[in-house]
C-alpha cells in the first residue's frame, strides 16, 4: 500500500475549493448527515465532488465520514458540501438534537438493570 504522504498533497485544497475557504452555508456539523439527491447530473463536477457524490449514493453519511473517505480537511469538505447542496446534488439532515438524546446516565442504569436481571 502506498503511504498516505505519497498520495496526498498533489492537488492542494485551494484548487479543490477554487480559493474559497467559507462554505456558502454554515449548516454543516461533523455529524450532519448528507445523502445524494435524486437525479443529480454529475457533468461539470470536479473530481472531489464526484467522489462525494459516489460516497453519498450508498446512503446517508455524516460529514465526518465523508471527510474520512475523501482524506481532505474538514473545512474544505464543508465548502464542497455547501456547493453540492446549492447545486441540488445532495440533501442534508441535521443530527438529532442532543436534547432528545437519552441521558448517558440513564443508559448506564438500563445496562446495570439488565445485567442485574440476566
Amino acid at each position, binding site marked *: 500500500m502506498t503511504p498516505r504522504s505519497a498520495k496526498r498533497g498533489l492537488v492542494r485544497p485551494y484548487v479543490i475549493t477554487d480559493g474559497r475557504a467559507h*462554505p456558502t452555508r454554515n449548516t454543516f456539523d461533523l455529524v450532519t448527515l448528507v445523502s445524494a439527491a435524486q437525479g443529480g447530473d454529475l457533468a461539470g463536477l470536479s*473530481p472531489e465532488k464526484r467522489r462525494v457524490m459516489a460516497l453519498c449514493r450508498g446512503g446517508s453519511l455524516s460529514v465526518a465520514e465523508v*471527510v474520512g473517505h475523501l482524506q481532505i480537511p474538514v473545512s474544505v469538505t464543508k465548502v464542497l458540501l455547501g456547493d453540492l447542496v446549492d447545486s441540488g446534488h445532495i440533501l442534508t439532515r441535521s443530527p438529532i438534537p442532543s436534547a432528545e438524546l437519552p441521558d448517558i446516565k440513564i443508559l448506564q442504569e438500563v445496562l446495570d438493570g439488565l445485567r442485574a436481571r440476566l
Partner: protein
Amino acid sequence: MTRDIPEAVFWCLLAVALAVVVLLIRERRITARLRGKVKVLEDDVRARDAEVRHLAAVRLPALMESLTGRPVVPGLLHGRLAGSAFATGLHTVLDLFARSTETARERADVSAKSALKSSMRALQGLANEQQLAISEMQERHDDPYVLADLLEIDHTNSQFGRRAQAISVLCGSWPGRQRAASPLVDVVRGATSRIRDYRRVQVHSQVDVAVTSRAVEPIVLAVAELLDNAARHSQPNTSVQVNLQHAHNGVAIVIDDAGVGLLEQEIHRAEQLLAGQQSVDIQKLGDPPQFGFAVIGILADRYGFRVSVDTQSPYGGVRAVVFLPTALLTRVQDDTPRSVPAARPVPAPPAPIRPPLTRRTAPAAAPAPEPAQASAPAPEPAAAQPPAPAPQPAAQPGTQPDPASGPAAEPMTATALGLPKRRRRQPLAENVNPAPEPAEPAAPQGRSASEAAAIMGAFARGTRSGRSCASDATDSTDSTDSTDLEGNSQA
C-alpha cells in the same frame, strides 16, 4: 724638383677628391638602402602594433562574446602578416585565451550549479516540510477564517517549492518527492496548484488514464511551468484552457492561452531548449533568468515525453502540447477502496454519539490473523466504490442474511475480536426493495427521517421506562410490553 711639387700635390688632391667622391657616393647609396629598410621595418612594426592593438581591442572581446553566443571572430588586420611567426603567435594567444575562458566558464558553471543545487534542495526540503505542517493545520482547524489564511500560505508555499524544485532540476538534480501513480486529471490539477493564477486554469478532461508513479512529479513540474508561462503572458481576465486528449500511443495535454504569443526567434529558442539535448548554461538564461523551457527540456529528455510550443492557439496565444507516451501511463486505479483501510481516525469526535466506525475497528482487528478478519475490511471498500451499482454489493454482507430484520434495527455484526461493528446506514427502503436503482435510496430519506426520530424517541422512552422498571423491581414480566405501554402513555 720644386717644380714637381705642386703637380704632385695636385695629383694627390685629385686622388683624395676622387676617393672622397667615391666614398660619398657609396655612402649615399648605403644610406638610401638603409633608409628604405628602416622604413619597411617601421611599417612592419607599426603594422604589428596595430595588429596587437586590434587583438586587444577587437578580436579578444569578439572571441569572449563568441563564447557566449556570437560566432564571428574577426581575422588579421593586415593580410600580409598572415603566415608569419607573428601571426602564428597571435593565433596561439587567441587559442589559449579561448581555452582558458572555456575551462573557467565550465568550472564556474559546475560550481555554481552544485552550490545552487544544494541550496535549492535545502529550500525544497523546507518547502515540503512546511507544506506538511500546513496540511496538518488544515486538518486540525475547522474554522473558515483560519482555512482562508492557510490556503493563502499554502498557495505561496507551493509556488516557492516549485521554484526551488525547478532550479534544482536545472542544476541536474532529480525532481524529488515520490508520488503514487495518479490520475492524469489530478496531475494537471497538481500542476495548477503550483502557479500563481490557478483560478484562471480550466481543465477539461476526456481521458481516464493515470500517470506512473515515477513520472508524476516531473510531469507536474513541466506542466506547471507551461501553465505558469501561459498565465503569465496573457491578460488576467482571460482563462487558460487545458484539454486532455487521447492520441496515438499516448495522451496529449493541450494548454491554450489567449496571450501575446511567441515571436519567431522565441519559438526557435524555445524549441532548442525544449529539445533538452545540450546542457543548459545557467548564465545564458537571461536576467531575470527564464528557466521554464530549460527545465521542461531537461525533464522531457530525461523521462521521455515531448513538449512543443510552436502552434498558435485558437485563442490567439500559444498552444503548448505535452505528449505523454504510453510508457509513462498506466490504467487509472480506483483509489477509493484502497483509501478506506488507510483512512486515519476522524479528527473530530463523533464517537460519543455514534458507535465505533468500521474502519476504526478494522485496524484493531488487523493483528489477529483470523479468517474472519480478512472479511472485515471488505464490506466498506465495496460500499465506498464510486460506480453506480455499488450500493447493492454494499448491502450484501450486512443485510442479506436477514433482509427482513426490520427497518428499526441497524444491522450489527461483530469483528473477530467480538467488538460490535457498525454497517453503513442503509436507506430504509432498500430493505423493502432488494435491488434498488442507484438514485432510489435518496428518495425515501425524508420519510425515514421521521421514522428515525420516532425510533430514537421510542428508544429514549424505553430506557426511561426500563430504569423505572429496574427501580420498581416488581415487574417481572417482559419489558417490551411496559416499554410500549410507557411509550404510548408518554406519547
